């Protein structure tokens, strides 16, 4: 007679280790099929990671460019065509003048700096070469700070230079590169400070040069190329130098840097005297108020634009209102000016990034979905093949839960392997994309993106496995054993 305890109903489930091994064995037994099954997941994960890397790169490049052009607390006042209802006042419009500068300096406490600009598109020539730039302008010394410029060699002109309308200018590296050659081309850095440059034929003395502005990415590639060049002295002759990318083909960010490098600054008075007024020797500026000849008169020449810096970015609307009120009075109510804020650009960048991210996620999401359906399909097929195996497992004591778990582990492992392969592939994909379409924003692969993509693949595996697992677990062991 039986005298055994009846505690055997305390059931312990199948162990994870052997279940996992069984799953891997099953996947390995159908290597090619498994790989095909993983393809959707691989594509989904790699495109998710690559997309996020591209967007991240763009975002970083755009932010750098934004800082390069002077940040968010800068506002530009530009002339504008009159609104339709004011068209008849066209000939009374005064444009932006020094009078406005004075008025803003005195009457707008929310504006900390005002920098007038008078643009003089020039053909610069020196050293037997010429270079056209529309970034030549007469400014006050304050422009240096306003536009986030840094003088690396020589000096910026000062107020005395301005007052005396001296023929001096400060150039950027793009001008230097065009006229004297870039360091890469020449093999050494030429600093043309003290040289004479002809701007539309007028001789100027270069008294300073800005530092070279570039995105972090550009700097890195340049440094890398320099290092490579140094490491291979044998082909130095053949090497005309890996050219510093001048940015003509660049995207928005690179363009911002190039523009900045092509800048030529001269004193505002000089610009006026040499290029605008012809004969007038009357200086203008805050120190010699030309208010005796008010708006409209030739004595107060039009400026191309004003750059304003705001005390606090949060007060942007109030500051704009202040300036607007002042200008409306000096312009006699004629709205021939407009404000350009970096905010618009920042907003455009954000919108673009949001859209890129959304469409990228959509593609990746669809790939993952397709991958999930593929896994589900294969798991269902695999179960029909393995009815007998499931019956045998049940006959030796596997519960429905054990079978469910086994199938779920299998589909999850497939998805996880696909996820891993996808992460590997994503690096290749990112490389491929950046070689096909070289932007100055190198894609940035982030750990977060990889983690999220991998997490998605695991979720897809689990979801895809649920239905097949349920189906398998419900198989009747007898029918499964009869199955021949």
């Amino acid at each position, binding site marked *: 007679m*039986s005298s*055994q305890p009846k505690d055997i*109903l305390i059931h312990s*489930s*199948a*162990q994870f280790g052997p279940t996992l091994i069984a799953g891997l*064995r099953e996947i390995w037994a159908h290597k090619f099929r498994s790989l095909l099954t993983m393809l959707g997941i691989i594509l989904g994960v790699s495109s998710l990671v690559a997309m996020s890397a591209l967007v991240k790169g763009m975002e970083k490049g755009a932010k750098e460019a934004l800082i390069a052009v002077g940040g968010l607390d800068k506002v530009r006042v530009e002339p504008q065509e009159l609104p339709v209802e004011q068209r008849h006042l066209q000939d009374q419009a005064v444009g932006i003048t020094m009078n406005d500068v004075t008025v803003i300096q005195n009457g707008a406490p929310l504006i900390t700096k005002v920098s007038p600009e008078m643009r003089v598109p020039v053909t610069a020539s020196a050293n037997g070469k010429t270079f056209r730039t529309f970034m030549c302008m007469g400014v006050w010394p304050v422009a240096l700070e306003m536009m986030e410029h840094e003088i690396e060699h020589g000096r910026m002109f000062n107020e005395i230079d301005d007052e005396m309308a001296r023929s001096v200018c400060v150039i950027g590296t793009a001008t230097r590169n065009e006229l004297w050659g870039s360091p890469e081309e020449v093999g050494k850095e030429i600093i043309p400070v003290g040289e004479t440059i002809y701007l539309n034929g007028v001789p100027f003395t270069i008294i300073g040069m800005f530092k070279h502005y570039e995105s972090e990415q550009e700097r890195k590639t340049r440094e890398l190329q320099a290092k490579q060049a140094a490491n291979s002295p044998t082909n130095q002759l053949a090497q005309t130098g890996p050219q510093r990318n001048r940015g003509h083909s660049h995207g928005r960010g690179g363009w911002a840097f190039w523009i900045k490098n092509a800048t030529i600054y001269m004193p505002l008075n000089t610009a006026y005297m040499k290029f605008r007024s012809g004969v007038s020797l009357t200086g203008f500026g805050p120190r010699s108020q030309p208010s005796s000849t008010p708006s409209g008169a030739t004595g107060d020449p039009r400026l191309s634009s004003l750059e304003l810096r705001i005390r606090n970015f949060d007060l942007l609307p109030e500051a704009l209102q202040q300036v607007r009120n002042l200008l409306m009075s000096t312009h006699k109510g004629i709205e021939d000016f407009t404000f350009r804020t970096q905010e618009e650009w920042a907003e455009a960048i954000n919108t673009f990034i949001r859209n890129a991210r959304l469409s990228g996620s959509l593609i990746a999401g669809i790939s993952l979905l397709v991958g999930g359906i593929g896994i589900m399909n294969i798991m269902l097929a695999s179960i029909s093949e393995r009815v007998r195996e499931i019956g045998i497992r049940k006959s030796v004591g596997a519960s*429905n839960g054990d079978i469910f778990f086994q199938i779920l582990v299998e589909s999850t492992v497939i998805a996880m392997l696909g996820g891993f392969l996808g992460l590997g592939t994503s690096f290749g994909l990112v490389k491929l994309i950046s070689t096909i379409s070289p932007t100055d924003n190198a894609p940035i692969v982030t750990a977060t993106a990889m983690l999220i993509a991998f997490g998605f693949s695991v979720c897809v595996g689990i979801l895809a496995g649920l239905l097949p697992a349920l189906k398998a677990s419900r198989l009747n062991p*007898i029918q499964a054993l009869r199955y021949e």
Partner: protein
Amino acid sequence: MALVELRNVSKIYRLGGEEIRALDNVSLDIEEGEFISIIGPSGSGKSTLMHILGCLDTPTSGTVCLDGIMIQDASQRELAAIRNRKIGFVFQFFNLLPKLNVLQNVELPMIYSGVSGGERRKRALAALEAVDMVNRARHRPSQLSGGQQQRVAIARALVNNPRILFADEPTGNLDSHTGEAILSLFRKLNEEGRTIVLVTHDPEIAAVTPRRIEIRDGRIASKIDLTLAGLARGSVPASPASPVS
């Protein structure tokens, strides 16, 4: 109390309008340590009976009590546990998993009872030793003969030390010589105290066992009990007594 108590068990399959009584009001006791054969022609309900005894199937009506557990009240999970720890199955077609080697096949039941890896190996090797198959532990089932596969299947059935062993036509796919060897293995196991239920349609094989139950059309047609307890109870052979080996 008997190890297995079957009371008025019926199994009815309904196919369309037709009703198939695979088992019809079967009552049966199996005592611990017995060696029983269930015999009957094809389609008589032997396998159905064995599946119900072995908790692979549930009866349409009637009760089954195995080792004190009413199996019709047990959950699916509990039935799995009973199959895992109290019951061993041996099938006509061996039913080894082709992707696993011999050792892994024998280890399989222990995976579902939470035996640790080292212990699993040890016990699987001991079970293979008992059926004299240790030297083939690393082989795949497809690399073995039918008799060898069946011995592995027996090792798998025994590895969790079950209370009862069910064998459905275990020699059905083997030549008579190999079948003989498997039968003597069963006999040896029974002598060591294992309870064994052997399903067969072959009277010669049934003759090996002291107790025989014959089914026809889902009913018990005759019971022969040549055990001392059976003889004492006065179980009279309903058909001419088969020779006892």
